């Protein structure tokens, strides 16, 4: 695995590259500014998800109701030019303005930009972007600083570091995956893992009978 440099990134995104092999980051508003020596800057979209605290009792992976979390979350839109204020210790889901498509031979990590990190903004905690993934990237926004932060849609808040795999994967992230072609922030689908909790419970019962 090696980190792609600017020239490699440009080649990977070249429209002449067949779609099956092409890295897509769209819309790329300002390639000269966004493509750095070894990363691509990503912008914040207008879409946010916030938890309605009064309407949820909590998140339990054993609960297999796949819509339970969604029902406790409020989706809203912040128009360009207006701010979304993220307060200290507040958590919100945002998304990249760009839609990403990873070809099967590339993977990536999404990380924060240092200017934002220095005022306490964390943009992503689950940072791996799998080969074959396609969609906007959900950003887990947390303000770890001491003062509220104004987040304006369209600003560059994250960066994508793209890696070449040792070889093209034979099992890219595809339709069976949890998050398929999202166009904005997606709520957790932890409920999809409820079966695993059940398996653990069965395992405990089996072990107690030994």
């Amino acid at each position: 695995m090696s980190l792609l440099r600017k020239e490699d990134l440009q080649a990977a995104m070249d429209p002449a590259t067949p779609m099956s092999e092409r890295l897509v980051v769209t819309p790329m508003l300002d390639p000269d500014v966004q493509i750095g020596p070894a990363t691509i800057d990503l912008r914040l979209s207008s879409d946010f998800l916030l938890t309605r605290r009064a309407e949820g009792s909590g998140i339990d992976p054993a609960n297999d109701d796949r819509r339970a979390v969604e029902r406790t979350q409020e989706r809203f839109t912040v128009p360009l030019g207006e701010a979304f204020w993220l307060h200290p210790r507040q958590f919100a889901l945002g998304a990249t303005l760009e839609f990403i498509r990873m070809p099967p031979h590339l993977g990536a990590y999404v990380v924060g930009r240092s200017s934002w990190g220095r005022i306490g903004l964390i943009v992503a905690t689950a940072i791996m972007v799998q080969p074959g993934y396609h969609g906007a990237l959900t950003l887990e926004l947390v303000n770890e600083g001491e003062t509220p932060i104004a987040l304006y849609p369209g600003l560059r808040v994250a960066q994508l570091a793209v890696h070449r795999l040792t070889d093209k994967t034979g099992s890219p992230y595809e339709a069976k995956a949890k998050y398929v072609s999202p166009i904005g922030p997606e709520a957790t689908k932890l409920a999809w893992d409820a079966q695993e909790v059940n398996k653990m419970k069965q395992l405990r019962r089996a072990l107690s009978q030994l």
Partner: protein
Amino acid sequence: MADLDSEFAFLAASVRRSVDLLRGYPAKDEISISERGSALVAHIEYVLTGLDAKLAEAEASFPAAARVERQEYIKRARLLNGFARFMHKSLPWMAEAARSPLALGALYFIDELAVRICGAKPDAVPNSANEYSTEWWPFQRLFATLGLPDQAGPIPIILNFPIPEAQSHLLLPLYGHELGHTTVWSNHLAQAVIDVHGKDLTFSREFNAARDASATQLGITQREAGLNIAWRLSRWVTELLCDQLAVQALGPSFLYAFCSFLLSDAWDEHGERHPPTAIRVSHLLSYLDDSKWTDTIETRTPVLLKWLRDDVAATAPKATDEATKFLSYAMGQVETTVKGEVETQLGDGTFDPADFTDAITVIEDLTDFDTLPVQLPSGDAIDRRAIMLAAWFSVLAGADNAASLASAPSDEESQAFFAKAIEMSALLAEWKAVS
């Protein structure tokens, strides 16, 4: 003896309260931040200023007025109350201008369409209602009574949509027709079309014959019958012009949206204000044939096209009264004139099939890999109208039949995907324009 002082004081206080409710409505302040709704707010404020002036004038004159005059001032205060209450219909408009339930992609699509169809950028405010309809300068009718001259500046246009269709992005082309009403009104297009045919002797003879027969049939004067037919002719021509503005600006996606939404009503019924849907579909197909769109539609949805042509458009409307028979005849006569007026109005704003052919290759190259179709290989934005038509073709792919046309706007996932593509494409286009 009635206490006129108290009655007048009560009515004046009531007017002030209604006016204050409008002026103090929280959404009104939010609108100043964004552009949408700002012309609407200016329009409301303009009328409120007129109301204030009339009320102040009455309050100044009332104490010294004779009893008969005082009763007149009371009548005037009641009228002003009625005006102020009537203006409360703008409260939900302001709320939705500030926070629209429509997706950004939908709003951008409507804004771009508004510029294309109306020329100068109007202030288009979508509003949740129970039907697709529109009004513009909504309080203009109060101007004369309040002694206000006509207002200048961007036209505030309210675009009503049925609440259940808020996320039915495939139906966005219907706003093209609604926006058309403002253009037809402000450019006197219906009258221009009728004037052309009024000079045609055969057309005039048919009109006069219908007027005379209608007068006899309905037991009314020839003048009344003539005014009635002329009024309906103007409305029917207006509808054809609005359809034509939408189809020329958007291409076949208007045909699909129009038929998906409207064909659930009987398509051979003659309305007071609307020609039968069959006639309207026939005119849309005729334009698409003339402008070389047919190959594109036929390649993608041959079964649907045949159904629209053979079963819908060909359904002969059954006019029974003389007035409607004339109107049906007139629709055939004005068709070419309507197309010509709209071509002139739109200038280079028509959507050309050659532009779509270039875009669809790129769009399908991307969507085949579940990738948002936003950008051309050159880096430029894909035309939003091409994305809309591609969305229709995508939803109808493998479902080329009448039932699928009706159910297409239920495909939430595809519509959200293409609406996001429209949002991003519009953003990219504006970014490049600003840069």
